[in-house]
């Protein structure tokens, strides 16, 4: 090897500063992993002892100091379902429109701008809006319907963006092939484009459900009930929800000793929902990626 063009100590210095910088990066990255595990570990550690079949299947009792969180679990699942019914069809159609139909140019730009803006609107503003429009103006009252509509609008930008991105990665040649065989545009989208994009769309949809499950601010004034031990009978009923339950019980509890375990248990159930959803999305993504590679 020839001698380096620069003095040796300079090279050493360069290498040392690289070493220091990389160590700093590594430590900070490790720290963030530790923070995540601290949060998860803490809630799992404290909450695991609380979880039992009774806790999961019974309604709260004795002024929220005993019993379980069954109505809150059901409420959260209902809200997830409701928001999916609101957001998925419209969001997917909107994504298809943007990628397949909209003529490139200001229309797409405008819609994308609006979608980005909507995704930046704080959740509490959605709550205000949902209250003004659905609860008061349309007269749905505090109800699962109003809550689902509000949450649906909140998750709409996420659904649109995932759909659009999933479709964007499908090569134009595939569409052209289908069109060349005499298929119409609709047939091409329905039989070729959508099936190919579906895996990634589904992954995105699942993640959007995860977001909905943990939202509190939008349902504060549109749906959530502090105490509603029976299950809702119709979509015009209020319901309990896990995140709201956790908020209420941990901030305005009447009997901290008795309610803290309930709070830990509720937080754990919420975390488990989020974990399961993230895991599911990850597994699906990997599964579909592998399948695509095999082809």
């Amino acid at each position, binding site marked *: 090897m020839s001698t380096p063009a620069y003095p040796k100590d300079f090279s050493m210095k360069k290498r040392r500063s690289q070493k220091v910088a990389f160590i700093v990066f590594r430590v*900070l*990255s490790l720290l963030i992993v530790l923070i995540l595990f601290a949060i998860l570990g803490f809630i799992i550690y404290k909450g695991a002892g609380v979880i039992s079949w009774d806790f999961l299947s019974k309604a709260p009792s004795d002024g929220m100091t005993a019993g379980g969180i069954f109505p809150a679990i059901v409420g959260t699942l209902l809200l997830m379902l409701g928001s999916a019914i609101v957001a998925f*069809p419209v969001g997917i159609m909107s994504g298809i429109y943007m990628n397949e139909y909209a003529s490139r140019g200001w229309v797409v730009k405008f819609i994308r701008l609006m979608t980005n803006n*909507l995704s*930046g609107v704080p959740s*509490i503003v959605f709550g205000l*809006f949902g209250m003004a429009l659905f609860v008061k103006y349309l007269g749905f009252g505090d109800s699962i319907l109003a809550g689902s509509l509000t949450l649906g609008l909140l998750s709409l930008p996420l659904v649109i963006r995932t759909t659009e991105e999933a479709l964007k990665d499908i090569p134009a040649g595939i569409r052209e092939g289908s069109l060349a065989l005499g298929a119409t545009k*609709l047939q091409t989208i329905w039989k070729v484009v959508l099936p190919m994009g579906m895996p990634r769309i589904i992954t995105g949809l699942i993640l959007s459900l995860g977001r909905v499950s943990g939202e509190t601010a939008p349902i504060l004034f549109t749906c959530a009930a502090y105490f509603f031990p029976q299950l809702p009978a119709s979509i015009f009923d209020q319901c309990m929800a896990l995140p709201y339950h956790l*908020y209420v019980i941990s901030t305005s509890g009447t009997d901290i000793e008795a309610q803290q375990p309930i709070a830990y248990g509720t937080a754990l159930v919420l975390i488990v929902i989020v974990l399961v959803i993230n895991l599911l999305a990850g597994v699906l993504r990997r599964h579909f990626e592998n399948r695509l590679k095999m082809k």
Partner: protein
Amino acid sequence: MKKFLEKAVKWLLTASGFVTSVVILLIIGFLFTEGAGLFREPVVEEGYVLALNRENPVSTLTAAEIKAVFDEDVTNWKDLGGDDMEIVPFRLEDADKYFTQEQLGAQYEHAGAAIASLVASTPGMIAFVPGSMVPEGADLNLIEDKNISAGEVFGGKEWFPTATPAPLFGILPLLAGTLWVSLFAILFALPFGISIAVYMSEVASPKVRNFLKPVIELLNGIPSVVYGFFGLIIIVPLLQQVFGLPVGESGLAGSIVLAIMALPTIVTVAEDAMRNCPRTLREASLALGATKWQTIYKVVIPSSMSGIASGVVLGIGRAVGETMAVLMVTGNAAVIPTSILEPLRTIPATIAAELGEAPAGGAHYQSLFLLGVILFFITFFINMCVEFISSRGRAKNS
């Protein structure tokens, strides 16, 4: 038939394409109509009047002055532009102090006349009574009934939405609280965010990266109330001990929680930008003899600056709009913060905490919608900044 279907579907898809735009318009419309109503509300609680002695030259008072009078912070009329005379505030509840039950009448039917004559005979008195109680043609001066002014709201330093007789809707403490807590959150999150993004995109092996990516996604997925709960149980008591605070709920607790919550946004966007930095740029730098680290901070980071900036601005947006976690850990004191260790209150937290108790349609309710409008425009502005930054970045790269 087939053609008709094609057309119908196209029409349907086009319609759904504009849904988000419609929603944005609806949000602006509904928030505005409710929020703007605040400026049509009277300063003094609806249906009530402030009655003065005929000899008192004062005829107008601001909401802040009225509050000071009834809190007995101001006790002399000369401070309010009147004569040198002691102020005697009178509320309906004080009636028993001045009158016997007989004088007021069994159904309080004489109360109006009794109070009117009391005010007429006490030069320094200011009475807060329902307008309907004051007998017609009574020998009294009424404080001019003005509407709440924009200046009082946007320039007001006090937020007392439930004060009687005159609630105060000064938003400055809330605005300051929001910006203060977000600023610190970003200061904490920035070094972490950039370092992790650099590490994931440039340094880490694919294996490590594949481990870090879900970690960041999970951090993003944890609901804000869980962060709030964690902050309340762990961070708040910890800060209280470390800094010896009277209460641990403080701006600092809020910014720490917000920093963790804003981190995934910053990391994801910044990492994306760095990975999109053209390979040729990197190779050119390495070929010139630069080390990997030199290449990162002299080539990769500058060339992906617009992406990094977008990430940071988006992170700020997330911090500004965050509600539940902040509500749970910042202590919610509506004062202009002087230090990050004090309790403070943000705009979203105020809406979340107070909307449930504000009577629908009242001034308080409308003021919360006005806060919503302000919050909406702050985040709207932030988003526009992101669009601007990233479109400039795209232009530069292409």
